[in-house]
């Protein structure tokens, strides 16, 4: 889920006419001071970070003057809170609190509907409140067609013993909160606490809104950079990986970093899963051997070889890993040789210098394993590949053994470099890749292996050299599926005339 910061959430609440304290975001002490002057009187300065317990960490401070607000902002900005670097604070008028409430909209998997939750006690987490004071909390399943009706909201408030004008204004706030959740496709939208002031006014003092990852495309106005849940800002590699995923709709690619700043010898594994369930099991198998996971990757749902290649390159960019473990469900519906070609290309270019175990069970696994094994001579570190009859536990054990017996080369060997083509024939692919077939090499090629192994069959021989049998435009629009056969098969079975350049913007900088 894409989480919004408090100040972003509050701007959505404000737009829906839910009262929020006077204030806004500041990114420097000067901005904080100016805001405090504008608000007047006592203010609160709050770190904008997706963590709980900010007050205890000194990341929420109450001050009386604009100068003190600037000082508080200067103390909070740049703080590291639970691994999160604070770059924004929120400056708001301080509220006088008479009473606090809680309101939230969540999606309930069991009732397959949105549910509104209200508590006459607010402040701490709703799970905690519900446990301590079960009578204080009420919930209602919302009819998705009709939405939350005003009378339903008021009756919910009545059920916890609130009446009169307060009942009316809280009811109003609930229907508006549901409106925000629905309009912005929120997986969850919570106001905690809702503050009642001595003057009888309600304010949303804090809020947590998370947008459904799958609906982020409907809300460009929210400016969400990566539609993924993180409990910290995305890393450089994660941003690079997201661009790969976003620009290629074929199959899944999911990348998150679990550890950073590690060195060789710490037992970090570059993890490359396929399919959610199989990945989780495979991760458990590695963890049970006493290793740690540097990252989590999933390439599944029939991804092209190019996507698997890019995923592998991104995994290998984590320089301190001690091993590479690729393992999915074991009985994949997709044809596994695509993944094998993607891995081989990555392992040759950014030469693999740590042991790898690749579990490729599923359709066409024999072919996939043969592709991996054939490449061993070109790759400095040992690779073993396995099929559906080999369990993740067994494969993790093999990786363990390989790592124990492996000595990392002192000098990093150079990756495979393609010679300058003498007579290049080129065309572009759907992800801005370039296929280069060196017709000078093709002329002398005895096997012309690219013709038979090209999965979409878009190459034909014309005068002894391979040419597209579709237009360059058709190839670029997706006719070339980037199966990588004309590079990998050609390298091992042909005359090494094929080369595919698949850019991964930003990776060279990491």
């Amino acid at each position, binding site marked *: 889920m894409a989480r919004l910061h408090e100040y972003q959430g509050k701007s959505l609440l404000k737009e829906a006419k839910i009262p929020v304290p006077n204030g806004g975001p500041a990114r420097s002490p000067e901005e904080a001071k100016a805001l405090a002057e504008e608000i007047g009187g006592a203010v609160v300065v709050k770190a904008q970070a997706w963590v709980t317990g900010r007050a205890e960490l000194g990341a929420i401070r109450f001050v009386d003057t604009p100068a003190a607000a600037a000082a508080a902002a200067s103390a909070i900005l740049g703080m590291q809170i639970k691994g999160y670097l604070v770059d924004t604070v929120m400056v708001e008028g301080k509220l006088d609190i008479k009473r606090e409430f809680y309101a939230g909209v969540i999606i309930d998997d069991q009732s*397959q509907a949105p549910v509104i939750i209200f508590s006459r006690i607010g402040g701490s987490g709703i799970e905690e409140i519900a446990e301590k004071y079960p009578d204080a909390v009420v919930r209602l399943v919302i009819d998705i067609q009709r939405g939350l009706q005003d009378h339903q909201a008021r009756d919910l408030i009545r059920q916890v013993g609130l009446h009169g004008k307060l009942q009316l204004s809280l009811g109003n706030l609930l229907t508006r909160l549901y409106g925000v959740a629905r309009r912005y496709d929120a997986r969850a939208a919570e106001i905690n606490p809702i503050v009642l002031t001595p003057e009888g006014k309600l304010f949303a003092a804090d809020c947590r809104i998370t947008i*459904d990852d799958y609906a982020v495309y409907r809300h460009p106005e929210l400016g969400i950079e990566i539609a993924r849940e993180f409990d910290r800002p995305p890393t450089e590699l994660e941003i690079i990986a997201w661009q790969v995923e976003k620009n290629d709709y074929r199959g899944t690619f999911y990348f998150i970093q679990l550890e950073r700043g590690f060195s060789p010898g710490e037992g970090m594994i570059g993890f490359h899963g396929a*399919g959610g369930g199989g990945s989780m099991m495979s991760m458990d198998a590695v963890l049970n051997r006493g290793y740690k996971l540097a990252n989590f990757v999933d390439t599944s749902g029939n991804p092209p070889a190019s996507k698997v290649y890019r995923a592998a390159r991104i995994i290998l960019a984590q320089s301190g890993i001690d091993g590479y473990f690729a393992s999915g469900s074991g009985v994949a*519906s997709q044809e596994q040789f695509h993944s094998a070609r993607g891995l081989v290309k990555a392992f040759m270019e950014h030469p693999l210098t740590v042991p790898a175990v690749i579990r490729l069970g599923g359709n066409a696994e024999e072919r996939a394993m043969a592709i991996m094994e054939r490449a061993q001579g070109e790759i400095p570190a040992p690779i073993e590949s396995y099929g559906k009859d080999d369990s993740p536990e067994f494969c993790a054990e093999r990786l363990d053994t390989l790592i124990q017996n492996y000595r990392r080369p002192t000098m990093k060997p150079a990756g495979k470099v393609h010679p300058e083509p003498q007579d290049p024939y080129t065309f572009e692919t759907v992800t801005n890749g370039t296929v280069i077939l060196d017709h000078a090499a093709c002329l002398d090629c005895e096997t012309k292996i690219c013709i038979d192994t090209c999965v979409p069959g878009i190459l034909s021989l014309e005068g002894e050299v391979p040419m597209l049998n579709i237009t360059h435009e058709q190839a670029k629009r997706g006719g070339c599926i980037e199966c990588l056969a004309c590079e990998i098969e050609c390298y091992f079975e042909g005359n090494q005339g094929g080369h595919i350049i698949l850019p991964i913007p930003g990776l060279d900088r990491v």
Partner: protein
Amino acid sequence: MSILIDRTKRVLVQGITGREGQTRARLMQEYGTQVVAGVTPGKGGQQVNGVPVFDTVQEAWEMVGALDVSVLFIPAPIVKSAALEAIDAGVKLLVIVPDRVPIFDVLEIADAAKRTGARFVGPNTLGVLSPGKAVLGMIGGRAASARSWFFPGPVGITSRSGGITSSMAYYLAQEGIGATTLVHVGGDVVVGLPHPEVVKLFQSDSETKAIVMFGEIGGSQEEQVADLVEADEVTKPIVAFIGGKAAKSGTRFSHAGAIIEGNRGTYKGKVERLREVGVTVVETFGELPQATLAILKKHGISL
């Protein structure tokens, strides 16, 4: 018997002229599924592998007769519209294959389905397969693979992971255990036919004698299955494995449904709750076939 799909069911494919739709329609046919019509708006009148294509589901229904099931190979943003079209036309079972369907769209589909008595598997599902009979969606890939991997038998299989659906069935088959039906309930938070619903279907299927379930962290599906067992609504033996022991709270591992929020949906909570009501929960996936064999033997169920 089997649940949800067999050779008698008349199947529609929505999105049949697309890259995925075309391929999968052919593979379904090759395995034995009766694909009687396809729909792609604006492409009516064409044929795909001998299957007539229509512009609307209503038209398909009028031209070829009643449709039992629709399998959707449709881009996520327009899944809602396609699903509502099938439900409005009277189709009672939908299999929604695509990933990334917005959650409020799923809620609207669920609401429409409830109102008309329709059901749906997915979204984000590999589908449903009854060994030796028919397949909906893409389980097994090539028909030849599916034929060599799975065979009929006494176990009902339900899974929250697509890949694991196949691998569970395969590893059980290696021990000689066949299956009535394999159901991938889908990887999302809200799915049409979650584990408890599938388990109820297996309970009322006369040929299913035991149930094997792959659960995951997040959500409450496995806890709901435990509730059914406790209430004696499900009496057939269940063997389960829960994935995601290693996951950190708040971190999603690929399946949108597999995220722990607060203390809900944890590995420990699920395992304890299932064991409390007598479900066999194995610690590693590799133990699943042997544990299933033992349960079948204990209950005197022949393979």
